[in-house]
């Protein structure tokens, strides 16, 4: 029941964020909506017991790549600057309260040791047993480099083509 509630919450946030990202006029706002969408997606991953993917999704996409995009957009100075998002003491207090709440949750989590999974899935016991026998890296690496080796290698070619293609298309002077 609670899982269903969180799924619907995250799904609405993910889809709504994606739609708002397309509809927003301000590129910075549109990017922040995308970040929200990614966070919601990570929430769904957690509901599926895919904690590692959820963490990587937040760190790599929402963290690194999108912040990089944000910097690029700000440096490019697209469009006239809009009014500031933070207005008045009220909003400032709300922001601090939200940040404090997240921090408090983190502290509680750290004190309690570990979280238990919310959904069914494989469950904490299976996960623990697997982590015991192979370690966290093994659980990820084994399927990646054994069962899914071929798509993994093709993906590396794909990324190489993307790099070469970007250079070919972005070269300043025509060859």
């Amino acid at each position: 029941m609670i899982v269903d509630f969180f799924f619907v919450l995250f799904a609405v946030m993910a889809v709504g964020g994606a739609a708002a990202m397309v509809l927003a006029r301000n590129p910075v706002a549109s990017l922040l909506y995308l970040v929200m969408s990614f966070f919601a997606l990570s929430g769904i991953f957690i509901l599926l017991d895919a904690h590692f993917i959820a963490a990587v999704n937040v760190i790599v996409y929402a963290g690194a790549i999108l912040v990089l995009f944000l910097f690029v957009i700000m440096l490019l100075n697209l469009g006239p600057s809009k009014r500031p998002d933070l207005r008045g003491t009220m909003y400032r207090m709300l922001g601090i309260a939200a940040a404090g709440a997240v921090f408090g949750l983190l502290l509680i989590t750290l004190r309690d040791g570990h979280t238990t999974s919310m959904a069914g899935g494989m469950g904490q016991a299976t996960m623990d047993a697997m982590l015991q026998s192979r370690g966290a890296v093994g659980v990820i690496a084994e399927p990646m480099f054994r069962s899914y080796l071929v798509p993994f290698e093709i993906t590396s070619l794909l990324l190489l083509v993307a790099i070469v293609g970007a250079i070919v298309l972005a070269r300043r002077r025509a060859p």
Partner: protein
Amino acid sequence: MILDFSSPIDYLWALLPEVVLAATGLLVLVVDVFQRGSRSGPSRAWVGWTAVAGVLLALVANGYLLEFEAPGRSGMIAMDTFRIAMNFVILGATALGLFLAFDYLRREGMDIGEFYFLVLMAAVGMMLLAGSRDLIVVFVSLELMSLSAYVLTGFNRKDPRSAEAALKYFLMGAFASGFLLYGIALLFGATGSTNLALVTSEVTRGAQEGNLLLYAGVALVVVGFAFKISAVPFHMWTPDTYEGAPTPVTGYMAAGVKAAGFAALLRIVTVELAPAAEVWTEILWWLAVLTMIVPNLIALAQDSVKRMLAYSSIAHAGYLLVGVVAGSSAGRSAALLYLAVYSVMTIGAFAVVGLVAGKGDSRTGLADYRGLGWRRPLLGGLMVIFLLSLAGFPPTGGFIGKLYLLIAAVDAGHVALAVILVVTSFVSYYYYLRVIWKMYFEEAPEDAVLPAAPGGAFRLAAVVAALAILVSGLFPGRAIQTAETVGQDLAPRPATPFSQPAVPMGVPDTTTD
């Protein structure tokens, strides 16, 4: 040698031609940097020939695949004769495309190593797509092929049409990839696996129970592929992209990308998803009808030969879809045969267009072909053979291909499709023959610019291509026999027991310890 895919080394053998081609691509990229040093401008000629050598080596490696046997159907890559035949078609198209592109690349200053690298990588993607038996491999190889094609489309930095074509292609292609990926996700959700052998057995069960998730997944996968093979109404990007792209790239895309897309469609939809036939037959039937009628009518009104050939390439997707809809092994054989002939004739026709267009790719209009047949007899003669084959006139391979598609359609009970195929082919005669009329029965104007004489590589490859079309039309026995054997090899079979258990994502495979 028997491959059971229990160890990753087996994949190295199973993917031998792809590995050879990818290694050549990396080699080209590296030697290109070293031979260039600090100088700018075109690469030396041997860089291009290295790429050609790699393709020829991959052809040999592909023949060597016949030595291997993969008894189970558990691997991510198929080891049947259909894959080997499709690899021959794709590699042949790549070699032909490279031979015919040299003159053009030199003229437009595009003769740099990255071009060859991207062509080779596109070929690797096409071959993997044609042979994959796992939905993840289907997606990443499709992306490898598409990404290379997007960049190749925009390769001519001096031409704004090229950039426009690349942008349109990229946006529509990314949209289509989204459809395909969503379809794959739904199929995974409905069946619990991305391995096609497992998906098939689950589909058999799911189709009996009327699983809605499964039906939606199948429909989305079909739509995703329909974009890639430019079936009407998912063809909007094709005319602009084919017209704006550098002409040799257009020919290569029209042949290779379409061949790979059809190979995947034949393997995944008509064989692996055969239990869900009631879903896709209806969709593909309508796609085939529209794709035969609409582009043939629009092509009648085109004044640019390049754009006319783009519409003709869409129409050919319609003819090929008839073979897919038939869904029988005869239909698959006919589609394979027609794909082989089609890729040769379409690359040839686009190569002639690229040569006639002259510097800047500007003279592609119908009027630029006036009197060409008399002033450039070899070029004119080659163009006549390619166009007649595209139209499907008797002494050419195009006629034999269409005949077999017709037979397959009638045998499978799709008489309406066969009738539409014949009628639209008659309509298409007008726009193909109009070019021939201009070439031989109209005088060239006084100030007409004669196209540059083609180089040796072009002459050799174009003559070989034209001869191949004529020989397959006059003595089709061997080709038909091969296509029939291959088509039967691809027929749906009950899934055999697994040597490698299906592993859900993230769970270690315990049997490998």
